[in-house]
């Protein structure tokens, strides 16, 4: 073929290399422009597609911006009361050991109101995946301070920044659950660049494989932007996340399987 190919000559079904997975329902996402929720939804569905497990997967949606995840993910879904997704997923995975089960939760859901469910499900070594979207605030309700809000970070309920002397310290719940014997694989990733998206997908794939193999609870945190809550453009918010969130919430694997002998 010569180099003078036109667009129309390239845009043909046989040359397709990337399209949105059909496991994402064909409907506009309810998220703000540039919000990482959409990217993580798609990655999970790409993995379910690769595993050919659409009919063998149950997801549990949280309360938060992703409360409507069941509208977008074309799999069986439940929607839990605020913070209770790990309790629901415990029942679902125990009743259906042949299914891939995961929860999808924000930091307000998982690390505030749902802290007990999170910790006990992790400690019991339940066989499901927790996907944890950490954007440092309560996105859905208007950007209030969350347990994950950084020291000095502004939120609608701490407009001068989080003062740890009054408001306490941020909770690194991912490091915390990594200490528990019931977690098998614990990692922290992000989806703000193509390279990070690809890494996150690999991490999620491992998590789904391990939990399906009954190795214990797999916990994947994705540090993400809430550009609306942070009151920035999406591109600014991603930069702010790199400059401020990553030093406090460093990316990488926190707990890797001892028996597999692999590290990234």
């Amino acid at each position, binding site marked *: *073929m*010569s*180099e003078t*190919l036109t*667009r129309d*000559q*390239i*845009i*043909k079904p046989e*040359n*397709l*290399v*990337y*399209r*949105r*997975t059909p496991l*994402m329902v064909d409907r*506009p*996402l309810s*998220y*703000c*422009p*540039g*919000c*990482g*929720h*959409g*990217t993580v939804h*798609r990655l999970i569905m790409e993995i379910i597609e690769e595993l050919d497990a659409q009919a063998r997967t149950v997801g549990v949606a949280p309360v938060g911006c992703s409360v409507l995840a069941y509208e977008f993910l074309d799999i069986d879904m439940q929607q839990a009361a605020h913070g209770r997704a790990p309790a629901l997923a415990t029942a679902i995975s125990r009743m259906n050991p042949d299914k891939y089960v995961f929860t999808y939760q924000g930091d307000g859901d998982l690390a505030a109101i749902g802290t007990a469910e999170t910790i006990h499900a992790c400690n019991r070594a339940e066989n499901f995946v927790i996907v944890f979207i950490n954007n440092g605030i309560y996105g859905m309700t208007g950007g209030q301070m969350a347990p994950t809000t950084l020291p000095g970070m502004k939120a609608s309920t701490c407009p001068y920044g989080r003062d740890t002397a009054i408001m306490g310290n941020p909770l690194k719940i991912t490091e915390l659950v990594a200490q528990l014997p019931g977690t098998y694989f614990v990692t922290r990733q992000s*989806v*703000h*660049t*193509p390279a990070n*998206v*690809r890494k996150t997908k690999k991490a999620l794939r491992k998590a789904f494989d391990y939990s399906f193999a009954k190795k214990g609870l797999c916990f994947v945190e994705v540090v993400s932007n809430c550009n609306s809550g942070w009151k920035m*453009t*999406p*591109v600014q918010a*991603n930069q702010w996340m790199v400059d401020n969130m990553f030093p406090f919430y460093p990316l990488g694997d926190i707990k890797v399987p001892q028996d597999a002998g692999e590290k990234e």
Partner: protein
Amino acid sequence: MAKLKGAIVIDIERCKGCEVCVGACPESVITMAKGVNGKGYHFAEPTGDNCTGCTNCAVVCPDGVITVYRVKVTV
């Protein structure tokens, strides 16, 4: 010598104009339109013909509105 030539198709009505894809393109062949879509967003559009079909823009697009095609050409 083999070279990769790509082309992207953006679903402009579903694009939310976040601009995340623009900075993710190593060939700088995505630009934001002056016009707006039905929701009022300045949507992304391909420009120039240096796209290599690397898929970077598509994997990072939060709304998954980019489709990528690629062919190998010999020059």
